[in-house]
Every structure is written in C-alpha cells, then in structure tokens.
C-alpha cells in the first residue's frame, strides 16, 4: 500500500510535491560555486567580536544618504559625499565620508573620545572637541564602526562597509 503523501500547498515553482522536481531542485541547490577560503576565514573570524562590546550600547543606522530616495533623485551619488546618522535612545553620531576621510559630530554636541574600529580591532582614536566634532583620515577598506565615549555614556555603532 502506498503511504499517504504529505501535500504541501502554497508551493512555489518548482513543485516540491513531485519527487523528480524536488530532486532537480536539490541538484541545483547543491551545485553552488565554492566560497573563497579568505571569505570563509573572515566570516569565522567575526566570532571573535561576540560579546566584546556587551557593556556598550549598540546604536543603529538611522539614515544613510546613499539609501535615501529623495537624495538620489536630486543628485548623482558620486557628486555628494555620503552622510550617515547613527542614533540610540539618548546619544548619537553623524558622519560624512568624503575623499579625505571621515568628519563627524557627536549628538548631542559634547566632548568625548571617538575610536575608529576595523575588523582587526581599534584603528585610530581621536578626541571630539567642545561641540563634539572629530575627524579621521580615510579608513582602510572593509567594515568599520565607531566607538564613542562621553561623560553621558559609551556606545558603539553597527558595522558599515565603506
């Protein structure tokens, strides 16, 4: 006796209810180009960052001019520097990425210490002046984040690719 077949509905194409179609899709799923060892090593290495900044508030990216539709209609992306705003509950940082590097300001305006961090670790640290302004020379390629420390608190931004 044939066992009752489990019907899966809402099936996308291809039809996985059909053994042969499912096998064909499985074949496609298993035919993937190998991922570079370098990419895998970097991905595994990301684990070293687990919990490292657990005592710092992680603040998210609130605005990125390169994902803003209003900006993209008005001007071509290469003409204007990329601006990004990161905000947490009370603290934030806004930066502009241009040809010479990073210029930024702590929000609300206040002095502090800002560290530019790459996947390899802290890269450079600079003081933010009385109104929270700071600047870094052009960072190396790859993911970066900013770690900011002020009297009001310490926080770190999410990783971004520059």
């Amino acid at each position, binding site marked *: 006796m044939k*066992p009752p*077949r*489990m019907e*899966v*509905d*809402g*099936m*996308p194409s291809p039809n*996985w*209810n059909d*053994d042969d179609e*499912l*096998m064909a*899709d*499985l*074949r*496609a*799923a*298993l*035919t*993937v*180009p190998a*991922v*570079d060892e*370098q*990419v*895998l090593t*970097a*991905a*595994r290495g*990301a*684990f070293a*960052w*687990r*919990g490292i900044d657990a005592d710092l508030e*992680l603040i998210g990216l609130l605005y*990125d001019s*390169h*994902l*803003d*539709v209003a900006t*993209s209609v008005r001007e*071509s*992306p*290469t003409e204007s520097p*990329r601006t990004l705003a990161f905000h947490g509950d009370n603290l934030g940082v806004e930066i502009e990425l241009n040809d010479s590097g990073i210029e930024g300001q702590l929000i609300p305006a206040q002095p502090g210490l800002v560290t530019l961090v790459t*996947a390899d670790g802290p890269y450079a640290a600079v003081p933010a002046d009385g109104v929270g302004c700071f600047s870094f020379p052009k960072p190396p*390629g*790859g*993911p970066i984040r900013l770690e900011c420390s002020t009297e009001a608190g310490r926080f770190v931004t*999410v*990783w*971004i*690719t520059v």
Partner: protein
Amino acid sequence: MAKASDLPTLVRASVDGDEEAWNELVRRHAHLVMAVTRQYRIPPADAQDISQTVWLRLVEHLADIREPAAISGWIITTTKHECLRLLRSGGRTVPVDPLNGRVLDQSAADDVDGGLLDAERHQALRDGLAELAPQQRELLVLLAADPPAPYAEISRRLGIPIGSIGPTRSRILEKLRATNAIRTYLEATREAAANGGGRHALAELE
C-alpha cells in the same frame, strides 16, 4: 557534533560561545551571502567586504534571533542592503530603486528577484538536508550529483539493495519535506503570498 545539528541548536550554541557551532553556521550560509552579491553583480573584492560586514552584524544580532529558521531571510536582507549601498556609493551601472532594492531595468529586475528567490529556496533545501540522518543525506547527495551516481555504486556505498533505492529515495524525500527548515520556509512563503502577491518570501526582518 556541530555538523549534524539543526539551525536552532547551532544558533543557541553560538550565542553561548561555541565557536564550532558558529563555524558551522558560516559553512552553511556563506554561499547565501555570495549568491546575493552575485545577483547585484558586485565585484569579488567588494563582495568580500560586504560578506564580512554581514557576518560581523550577525554576531551582534545572534542573541536577538527568536526564530532561527529566519536566519536566511535576515542574511539575504542585510546583504541586499549592503549591496545597494555599495551600488549607490560607486555610481555603478545597475540602476536600482533604493526604496525597495528593485533594479529599475525591468528585465534585470526580474532576474535579480528571481535569483534572490532561488537563493533562499536553495538555502532552505540545504538546511533541510542537513537535518536528515547522515545515511539519508548521503543517498540524496549521490542521487543529486550531476550525473547521478550509478545505482550499483550507491548500493555498494550505502549497503542497500539496488531494488530498494527508488522506494528509499521516495521515503527520504518525504522526510525532507517534513524537516523543520522546509516547513518553516513554506510557512514564510505562504504568509508572504497571503500578504499580497508582489512581496516575496524574504520578509524584511530588520
């Protein structure tokens, strides 16, 4: 041990600091990140940077993941956003609508959307496969090889009679359909379809 674990186990173990589990998560999903960057025709050096950003973000996001099966959707969405940022920064040649990530050229748009759907579906299949018992998995892998392994060789390697390979395949495919990964994927696809046709299976999880 990590190799045989299902996604929820791997995610929980990674949160608890098990590096083996993390490495296995990477092994299973590294393809997915690269598949998305390929859809947007990101050059290899940039794709490498994007991949690293996505994994660094995942390390931070891991503890907040309530539904481990949704990890593929999260990876696709995060990678997609990074690709779009890069395309905008570089003034690249693929015009995309930054609001929804659709490529503005319609035929190219259909290609990218279709490619992302394929990538997600294939990831679900690989995740499902990983949930099966090793012997069951091996049978499907041998049969899915291109060209498929001859029945005589499968019979020898797995110690099952040639005559029962067909029925066994059918039974294992049934098990595959019942895996957590496949059921969760289908659930998400159904929900997306119910929430209006245009939206595809990868919910915006951010």
